[in-house]
C-alpha cells in the first residue's frame, strides 16, 4: 500500500504541479482542491491502468475515488487483490 501511495504521489506531483514550491501529501484534495481537473483525470486513470495492468471501470473512476492519493491507493489495492 505504501509503495502504491509513493508511486501515485510522485506521478501526481510531476504531472499536475506547475510550481516547484508547491507540495502535495497523500491527503491533499486533488479534484475538490482544484489541482486536477476532470479533463486531467483521464491521464491519471490511464497511468494507473498501465502501471498496474488493471482496468478501472468508468463508474468506479469517480472524482470522489480520485480525490486524494490515499483514496486512489485504496482503489488500486482493491484491483490488485
Amino acid at each position, binding site marked *: 500500500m505504501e509503495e502504491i501511495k509513493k508511486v501515485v504521489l510522485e506521478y501526481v506531483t510531476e504531472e499536475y504541479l*506547475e510550481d516547484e514550491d508547491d507540495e502535495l501529501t497523500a491527503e491533499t484534495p486533488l479534484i475538490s482542491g482544484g489541482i486536477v481537473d476532470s*479533463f*486531467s483525470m*483521464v*491521464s491519471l486513470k*490511464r*497511468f494507473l491502468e*498501465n502501471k498496474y495492468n488493471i482496468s478501472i471501470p468508468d463508474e468506479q473512476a469517480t472524482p470522489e475515488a480520485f480525490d486524494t492519493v490515499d483514496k486512489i491507493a485504496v482503489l488500486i489495492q482493491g484491483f490488485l487483490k
Partner: protein
Amino acid sequence: MSYSDAIRNIYQEQLKDIETAGVFKQERFIHSAQAADIEVEYPTGAPLKKVINMCANNYLGLSSHPEVVKAAHEGLDSRGYGMSSVRFICGTQDIHDQLEKKVTEFLGTEDTILFPSCMDANAGVFEAILNKDDVMISDRLVHASIIDGIRLCSAMHDTFKHSNMAHLEKKLQLHADKRFKVVITDGVFSMDGDTAKLDEMVELCAKYDAMVFVDDSHSSGFIGKTGRGTHEKCGVMGKIDIITTTFGKALGGASGGCVSGRRELVEMCRQKARPYLFSNTIAPVVVSGVLKVLEILSASTERRDKLEKNTEYWRKGLTEGGFILKDGDTPIVPVMLFNAKLSQDISRDLYDEGIYAIGFFFPVVPQGQARIRTQISAGHEIEHLDKALAAFTKVGKKYDILGKTKQEIIEKYGM
C-alpha cells in the same frame, strides 16, 4: 409568469457575487471607427475622450482601411446584405467559394471551410473528425473556444504542460494505442504573447503518428516573414494538419473564421460540423472585405513589416523604461504588475493620460500574474507609441515600479 421574484433574486445574488469578486465586465462605448485613435465614452454617460487604443486585436490596422471599407461596400451592393440560409441549402455565394480558395492559398494548406466565427470553427471541428477511439492532447493554456470544442467531442482528452515538449512526448507515449492522436495548441498564446514550438511539435507528432492542430487567430496575417502564421515562422508550412483562424482580428477584424488543412478533414467538417450545418455563414459584406484584406497582404508585406518594427520599438521602450515584460517577440506585449488592484489602478491612470489599455488578473490569468496586456498595431505611428511610453513612464513613476524586480513589486503591493 414563470420568472418569479425568487428566480430573479437568485440571479441578482449571483451577479452581485461577480461584482464583489471584482470580475464584473463592463463595456466601454467607442464612438468612432476602430483604429489607433478612438473616441470613448467611459464610464457610460461621460463626455467623449480621445485615446490611443493599445488593446485591440487590430494588428495590421486594417479594421477601417479605406480599401477594405470600399470592397465591403461593393460586396454589399453586388451580393446583398444577408443569405437567409445555411450554406448547404441556398446560403453559398461564389464569393464564399472564392474566399475559401484564397485562404487555402494564403495559408498554404489543402482546403478551407468558412465558419461564422473561429469560436464556431473550434467548437465544431473536433466532433466532426474524431470519435471515442481517438485522443486529443492539448496545451494547458489553449483558448477557451478550443476547450469548448473538446468538451463537445467524444474522443478522450488529455493535456500537456504549457509548451513542454518532454511532457507532450510522455502523453504521446501514454496514448500510443489510440486510433488517432491530435495534438492541439494555440499558435500565439493570447495572454502571454509567446509562440508555440511548432517545429518540435511537428517532429514529435511525426515520430508518434499524431496530427497537429493549431489555432492561429493571433498570428494569421502578420506572424512569419510573409505573415502566413506561426507555421511559416517555425518553418513547418504544409505540415500542420488543421489550422483554425479568425477574420475578426488582423484580417479585417469584422467576424468569421475557418478550418483550413487536410482535404478530407475539411470535407468532414462540411458534412458534419454543427456550427457550419446549423448556422448562416459569414455575410457577403464581410466576405468581400476579407477578400480585399488577403489581396492587400498577398501583394506586400509592408504592413506586417511595420508591425514588427513597431513591436520592437515598443518592447525596447518599455524594457528601457524599467517595466517587466513577458518574453516574446509578438505584438502581444504583457506588462507584468503581479497584483490585481495595481493592474486596475494603472489601467485607470493610463486612461486618464489618454491611453486605453486593460488590466487582466485572476481568473483570466493565473493568480499573482496580473498585468496590462498591450497590443501593437501597424496602425500605430511612432508618435502614438512615444505618447504611450511617456504615459506608462509617468504612471510607472507614480507607483514606483520602474526598474523594480518582481519580488520588489510584490513586496510593495502584495500578490
